[in-house]
């Protein structure tokens, strides 16, 4: 089977040719890369333990079933083996591996147009008008305080910290993330769930810092809105 590790993952980004990416590759990562090149099983297992859950999670955003996600992840590892000779340590190992995964997952993608590059998708989502809070929640020009809340923002009870991390709310939040537009879903998942830095996300997804920030903003705003709706509806549920 021929595996294409090329595309975005294999090519150098000329803008970053000298900067080495976010921190570049650490000495420890380089040792693992060297091990992998020599077919060292321990090095491979270390990488699997480190990245498997992340890869599965990202793959699952683009395909519908766990089974297909497992296939995509397996293809990704094969892509990593095939490409490891050419890995130059400019990007961090993590973002390089995720770029390979993104290419694989999106080419299998069942949830979006597979022809559109991620950067174009990101620009499209970032370019839309998409207010964090609907305009009607603010006073219009005819009222005393135009642009201020029409009614005070409802609070999430007396113990919002507890409510928001209850299993039930987390389950709901997971569903709300699934409903986000694709690029927002990806950025929010990497930034807020996987706790990547902005630089890492830009590098892995090949998007600009400005678009990264807009997508993060839109995604987070929608999740807050979803949680608010969930809190408001809590009395209506059995």
């Amino acid at each position, binding site marked *: 089977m021929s595996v294409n590790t090329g595309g975005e993952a294999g090519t150098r980004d000329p803008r970053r040719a000298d900067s080495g990416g976010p921190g570049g590759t650490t000495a420890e990562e380089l040792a693992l890369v060297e091990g992998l090149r020599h077919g060292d099983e321990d090095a491979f297992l270390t990488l699997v333990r480190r990245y498997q859950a992340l890869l599965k999670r990202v793959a699952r955003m683009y395909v519908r079933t766990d089974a297909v996600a497992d296939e995509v992840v397996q293809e990704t590892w094969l892509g990593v*083996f095939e490409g490891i000779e050419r890995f130059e340590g400019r990007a961090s190992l993590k973002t390089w591996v995720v770029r390979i995964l993104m290419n694989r997952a999106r080419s299998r993608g069942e949830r979006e147009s597979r022809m559109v590059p991620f950067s174009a998708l990101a620009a499209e989502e970032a370019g839309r008008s998409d207010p964090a809070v609907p305009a009607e929640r603010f006073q219009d020009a005819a009222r005393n305080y135009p*642009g201020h809340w029409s009614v005070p*923002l409802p609070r999430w009870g007396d113990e919002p910290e507890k409510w928001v*991390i209850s299993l039930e709310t987390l389950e709901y939040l997971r569903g709300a993330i699934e409903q986000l537009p694709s690029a927002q879903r990806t950025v929010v998942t990497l930034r807020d*769930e996987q706790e990547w830095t902005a630089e890492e996300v830009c590098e892995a997804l090949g998007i600009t810092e400005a678009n990264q920030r807009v997508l993060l903003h839109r995604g987070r*705003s929608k999740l807050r809105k979803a949680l608010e709706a969930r809190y408001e509806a809590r009395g209506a549920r059995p």
Partner: protein
Amino acid sequence: MNPWGVDCNEFVEMVTEYLEGTLGEDDRVRFEQHLTMCGSCRDYLEQIRLTLRATGKLRTEDVPAEGMEPLLKVFRKWKQGRS
């Protein structure tokens, strides 16, 4: 000069830049001025922070042991194929 620093509908669009530390100095001052005056916007910022905290809780690290074996097979096959 807006005595509120910014209006609430502007505030909610600045929250991410504020948290990212990418607001310009003037905007940051206006944002924080608003924050001291507006309880709803303080609650809004807090809800965004809670949203981030909850999202962080969704992260799982487990790699099921049975998932290793097929990957090791792929690895060994690749090793054989290139030698």
